[in-house]
């Protein structure tokens, strides 16, 4: 299983903050994962997720859309931050 997390605007578009996915494919990138995830979720999520501003983290570390993900990983999609 892979845990997928959405934050801020993305969690509102997805209608949820977290989803778990089967990770049977061993050659999956973050991008492949995102493609799979959006299918079952509201259309707005795909629009927001692929708008070019979203960063990704794998296991709480900055990664990129080509990073390979594996069973047990936690993958987070991060819209532009606004802390401080």
């Amino acid at each position, binding site marked *: 299983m892979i845990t997928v997390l959405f*934050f801020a605007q993305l969690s509102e578009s997805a209608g949820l903050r977290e989803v778990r996915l089967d990770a049977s494919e061993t050659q999956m990138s973050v991008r492949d994962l995102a493609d799979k995830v959006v299918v079952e979720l509201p259309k707005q999520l795909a629009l927001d997720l692929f708008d070019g501003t979203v960063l990704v983290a794998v296991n709480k570390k900055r990664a990129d859309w080509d990073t390979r993900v594996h069973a047990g990983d936690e993958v987070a999609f991060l819209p532009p931050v*606004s802390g*401080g």
Partner: protein
Amino acid sequence: MSVIIQNQDFDVGLEYQRLCDANPKAGAVVFFVGLVRDFYSEPEQASEDSDSSPNIDYLELEHYAGMTESLCQETITQAIARFGVADARVIHRVGKLSARAQIVFVAVAGQHRSEAFQAAEFIMDYLKSTATIWKKEVGSNGAHWLGMKDKDAQAAKRWKSSER
């Protein structure tokens, strides 16, 4: 050196005292507090007419627990090494915060004021541009997630171009 992400408020006087007590050799303490303003921060939500500008009721802050702490820790470690200061601390609140509430506290103690000022600004700039924290403004003109502002991206970038 510490990073605390919490919903609870913080006491600036107490935090200042703690920093001084922990750094008896420091000659300079700089700190920054960010507060919730009661109006929308982006032009689309703000009114043109400033007299009747719509107010926000509260901010809702969320963050990526675990990742935020380690990003802030990294930032502090970098600031201490780069500016040669003695200590730096961050407290960032999350959850629902009403207008005028304290949001963030950054404090730096060091030998000299110039380095302490620079370290505090560096930490704030990085915190704004990299920490996994998001703000939603909720008020009379609806709810609106804030994205990183151009200004903050620029502020963070300047530390990259100026090698010291």
